[in-house]
C-alpha cells in the first residue's frame, strides 16, 4: 500500500523507500567539498583556495571594510545598470513588439548586438568613458539591455488581439492600451528578460572591473588572486554566485507568485 502511494506520488523510480538520513544532495555536497579539500592539500600550492581555508577566511573578509565597499560598488553598478536597461529595454521592446515598422527596422540591429559577445565592447568603452565607473555602467547596460528588449518585444507582439479589440471597443486610446493591456500581458516576458539580464549584468560588471581595475568585487578577486590570497578572493566568488543564484530564484519565485497561471519553458537568450 505504501509502495502504491509512492508510485502515484513520484513515479516508479521513487517506489523504493529512501531513508531520510541519507539526503543525496547533502552527501554530494560533502563529497565535493572533501574532494576539493583533498586535491588542494595533495597537489596544489598552499595559497590555493580550499574549503577549510575559505571558511577560515570568511569572518575576516566579511568584516573587511574594503570587501564590503567593493561588494557595494559592484552591486550598486549592477542595480543601476539593470534599472536603466529595464526602462530603455521595455520602451524599445514595446515599440518593436507593437509597431511592425519599428520591429522590422530594429530587429536586425538588436539581433546582431545580442549575438555579439558583450565582452568585446570593453576596450571600446574604456576608450570612450575612461577607466572609470562609467565604463562599468555602460558595459552593464550593454550586457543587460538586449535580453530584456527581445523578451519584451516577444511578449508585446503576442498579446491576444482579442484583448486589444475589447479595449478599443471601450474607446481606449493608444497609451492606455499599452499601459493597461500590453504591459500587464507582457509581464511574464519582461520578468524572464530581467532574469537573464541580471546574470549578464553581473558578468558585465566583473569583466569591466578586471579590465579597468576600478574598485569592486571583480577587482577584489583579481587583486587577491594576484597576491596569492586565493581564499579571500574566493569569498567574493561565493558572494557573486550567491547573488546570481539568489536573484534568479527571486525572479522565479516572483513569477510564480505574481503570475501563478503562467508557465513558459524558456526565455530568449
Amino acid at each position: 500500500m505504501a509502495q502504491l502511494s509512492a508510485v502515484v506520488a513520484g513515479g516508479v523510480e521513487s517506489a523504493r523507500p529512501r531513508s531520510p538520513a541519507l539526503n543525496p544532495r547533502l552527501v554530494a555536497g560533502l563529497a565535493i567539498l572533501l574532494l576539493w579539500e583533498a586535491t588542494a592539500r595533495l597537489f596544489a600550492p598552499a595559497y590555493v583556495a580550499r574549503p577549510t581555508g575559505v571558511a577560515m577566511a570568511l569572518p575576516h573578509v566579511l568584516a573587511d571594510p574594503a570587501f564590503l565597499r567593493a561588494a557595494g560598488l559592484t552591486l550598486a553598478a549592477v542595480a543601476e545598470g539593470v534599472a536603466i536597461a529595464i526602462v530603455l529595454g521595455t520602451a524599445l521592446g514595446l515599440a518593436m513588439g507593437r509597431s511592425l515598422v519599428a520591429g522590422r527596422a530594429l530587429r536586425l540591429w538588436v539581433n546582431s548586438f545580442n549575438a555579439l559577445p558583450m565582452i568585446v565592447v570593453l576596450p571600446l568603452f574604456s576608450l570612450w568613458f575612461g577607466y572609470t565607473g562609467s565604463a562599468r555602467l555602460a558595459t552593464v547596460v550593454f550586457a543587460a539591455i538586449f535580453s530584456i528588449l527581445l523578451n519584451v518585444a516577444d511578449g508585446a507582439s503576442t498579446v491576444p488581439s482579442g484583448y486589444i479589440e475589447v479595449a478599443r471597443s471601450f474607446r481606449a486610446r493608444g497609451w492606455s492600451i499599452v499601459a493597461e493591456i500590453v504591459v500587464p500581458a507582457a509581464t511574464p516576458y519582461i520578468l524572464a528578460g530581467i532574469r537573464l539580464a541580471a546574470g549578464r549584468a553581473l558578468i558585465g560588471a566583473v569583466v569591466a572591473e578586471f579590465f579597468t581595475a576600478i574598485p569592486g568585487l571583480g577587482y577584489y578577486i583579481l587583486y587577491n588572486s594576484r597576491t596569492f590570497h586565493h581564499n579571500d578572493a574566493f569569498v567574493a566568488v561565493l558572494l557573486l554566485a550567491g547573488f546570481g543564484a539568489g536573484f534568479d530564484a527571486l525572479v522565479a519565485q516572483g513569477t510564480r507568485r505574481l503570475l501563478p497561471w503562467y508557465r513558459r519553458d524558456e526565455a530568449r537568450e
Partner: protein
Amino acid sequence: MTFDRASWGRLAPSAASLVAGLALWEIVGQATSAAFMAPLSGTLVRLVELTQSGVLVPEVLSSAGLFLTGMALALLVGAPVGLLLARARVLREALDLYIMLLYATPMVALIPFILSLMGFGFGPKVLVVFLFAVFPILYNTVEGARSIRPELIEVARSFRSSEWALWREVMVPYTLPFAMTGVRQAIGRGLVGMVAAEFFLSATGLGQIIMTASQNFDTGAMFAAILIIGVFGVALTRLGRAVENRFARWRN
C-alpha cells in the same frame, strides 16, 4: 523570389534601417577622431589592410581553434554526464542544486584563479571556454530529464522494455531537445568565454587584435575585429537555433 508589394513592405524598413545605421556610423566617425570612433569606411580600410598584411587570417583561425576545442570538450563531457543524470535519479537529485548554482555563477570570476594556477598557455584558455559552455548543457539536460513524465517510463517498463530500449526510445529522444537548448546557450556563452580568455589570460586571436588596437587608439582595427566576431556570433546563433529547432519540433 519575387519582390511584390508585400515583401517590399517587409524588407524596406530593415533595409532602410541598415542603411541609416551604417550612414550614422560613417557620419559620427567622420565628425570625431579615429582614436575615438573610426567611421565605417575607415573600418573597412583597416579590415582590408589587416587581411592583406596576413595578420587577420591566422588570428581568426587561432580564435576559432580555441572556441571549437572548448565547445567540443563541453559537448563531450556535458552530453554523456547530462544523460547519465537524466537516468540516474539519485545522482540527479544529489547534483542538480550544484549544477544550478554553477550555471548561475558568473564563470568570469574564476579567470584570475585559472591564470594564477595554470598560467598563459592554450590549456587554461580552453578550460575557460569549457567552463562557460558546459553548465548550460548540463543544466538544460537535467531540467529536461526532470520533466520526463513518469508515466512514459512506467509504460515502457510495463511493456518489459530493456534498459537499452528505455534509453533509446524514451530517455534520449525526450531529453535531446532540452540538451539542444543547452547547446544553443553554450554557443553564446562559449563565445564570451573565448573573448574573455583572449583578453584576460594571454592575448591571442581576435582578442589580441582588439587589445593591441585599443592600446594604439586604432579604433578602425578594433571595429574590424569586433565586426568579424559579430559575424561569427550571428552565424553561430543562427546555427544554434537551427539545431535546436531541428530537434525540438515535437515540443512545439
